[in-house]
């Protein structure tokens, strides 16, 4: 799968849950949303090798 977060990207070819992915990337589920193939998904969902994953940061400042 192809994972995009801000200006970074990763390629992963194994199945894993959203929670596992966030843990690997050291991101708090409280601070982001995960979109798989254009659709918002919850943290217990499984990601497959072919998925296009976008992690959206939800924290804004100012």
């Amino acid at each position: 799968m192809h994972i995009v977060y801000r200006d970074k990207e990763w390629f992963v070819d194994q199945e894993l849950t959203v929670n596992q992915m966030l843990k690997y990337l050291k991101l708090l589920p409280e601070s982001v949303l995960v979109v798989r193939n254009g659709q918002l998904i919850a943290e217990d969902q499984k990601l497959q090798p072919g998925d296009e994953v976008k992690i959206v940061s939800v924290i804004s400042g100012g």
Partner: protein
Amino acid sequence: MRCRRCGNPGAINMRQHKLSLCLDHFPEWFLEQTQRAIKNYRMFAHAERVLVAISGGKDSLALWDVLLKLGYQADGVYIDLGIDHGSSYSARSKDKAAAFAAQHPAARLIVVDILHLYGESIPQVAQRRHRPQRPCSICGLIKRHEMNRVALEGGYDVLATGHNLDDEAATLFGNVLHWQVDYLRHQFPVLPADGQGLARKVKPFCRFYERETAAYTLIRGIDYIEDECPYATGATSLAHKETLNRMEHDSPGAKMHFYTNFLKAKEAGLFAAEETAPELHPCPQCRQPTSAPDLCNFCRLWEEK
């Protein structure tokens, strides 16, 4: 985690409410909760005219969308700050606001161009005032003044902003760290009009986590500016949000209780307004109330040019 309303896979899990909802039922819940906050805090009624402060970001556009969906008379005001910083930040955020307005024929967008009206953009004022790196306090002063002006001149009953619970909790956290009692007195989802030139101000999203307003804009396909204002980097409010989210991660609901119990304590009389509030008088130039002798801080900003 299945949707509590239909049993389909949940698109968002809100641990603080022990609630999962799907792509169909989350927006429905989001509208219901907003309506509830508007009613519980007596923010405004359907007969009243609402002015929504639009930045082009997720919270303000989500708020405008929700108010229109709930059948309120809601117009938007966008303040063009003239911030470029090599990324055309203001121009791009204004485009998002204008694109939203164009898709909603019932909605009117009022654009206030600071450079055009007062002869200087925010970075230019900040430069003249020797604060080129940190224009935020000047920017805040200008935004508050101009939104209030547009609300009063346009005959709006209330000014609504998209502040969410994370914004409010971060502000509260900062105010408590420094025991800024005066700010704590004035932090509330509804601030009444003072009858002397300050519009009523409301925050209908004050009980939503930032993650929830973001989820709403994503699900509804609202196009917003994802980038931050270039001057927001390193803001203490961002650091406070991170701290609160770490606490929230270890103990779901911590952030919510921190804020909502503060509101309850206030309603019970904690940090009540001082009886001897500072005396306000209308600014001789713009007529907005001020405690400064003579001209208000906003008008003084341009006097010294």
